[in-house]
């Protein structure tokens, strides 16, 4: 008798139906909160608390996008981690230095 290999059972790899309705997700979130699973995704902006410092907003903001070689990006990223600085702050500083250097 030959042993049945699991990958020959691939047809049995069936998913059971799962409820992902907003109501159920709200219940799941509440269950998670009760259990202390409360860390929020960094991409989700939290509502500012009353009395919290007001976020600095820029006047007439415009975006600059830069494309770097992978190796340069990696170096910048590592430096950011080492100095605990965000890439945004590092790029802003570099551009300001450039403007100062050219007398603007």
């Amino acid at each position, binding site marked *: 008798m030959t042993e049945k*290999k*699991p*990958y020959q*059972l*691939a*047809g*049995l*790899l*069936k*998913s*059971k139906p*799962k*409820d*992902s309705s907003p109501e*159920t*997700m709200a*219940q*799941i*979130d509440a*269950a*998670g909160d*009760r*259990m*202390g*699973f*409360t*860390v*929020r*995704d*960094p*991409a*989700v902006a939290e509502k500012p608390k009353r009395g919290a410092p007001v976020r600095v907003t820029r006047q007439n903001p415009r975006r600059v996008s830069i494309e770097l070689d992978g190796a340069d990006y990696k170096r910048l*990223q590592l430096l*950011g*981690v080492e100095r605990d600085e*965000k*890439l945004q702050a590092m790029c802003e500083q570099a551009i300001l230095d450039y403007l100062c250097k050219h007398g603007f």
Partner: protein
Amino acid sequence: MPTIVISSPKGGAGKSTAAVILGTELAAMGIEVTMLDCDFVTGRETALEVWAGAGDTPAGITLKHRVGEAEVIREIKAGEGDGKVVIVDLGGAASRLATRAISQADLVLVPMRPTSLDVKIGAAAIQMVAEEEETLGRSIPFVVALSATKAIKSKAQRGLTESLIAEGVEIIDPPLMERGAFAAFFEFGGDLRSMPPQGSHDAAVENARQFAEAVLQRLAREADE
């Protein structure tokens, strides 16, 4: 598409290593695998990004990086279809992302190193599964995968294994051994067959294959029930 969620609130328990081993082994068996990288911190590379950046992603694997709490359910459902597998690599945080992913799981895999700290913190993931089962009114099977174990079982490992079994916790057999080849995933990328031999490479390949087969058998058993 069965979804395997790899979860433990404890960092360094071997979640990403287990995800890569499982994903590459299932792909080597000819199964289509989607890997969702949910273990991310803004501004830092994730383990799966390091793995993907180190070499070619094996055929049959679709990788999606930095899947957050707002997208995780959509991404899990995106490729729905039988005979394929979604693997969700969760971060080491007790997060809303984790609870949402667990709610969609066909199997929750909780990696633990054989230390009492890992078992105590990993228990939070198991409690969360139980809580969600109650909320959803369906069973969410979970298994513990011991990781980074030694060839000779320590007294601590034996004791922890016995106490988990006594609590009715199922443990995947075989455990993932401590192997140089498993650590080398993040140096060379790809899979065990494509990387230069590391230490007892054949033993690592065999361990990974048996581990993936054990997880598949557990999934197939669930489909039968």
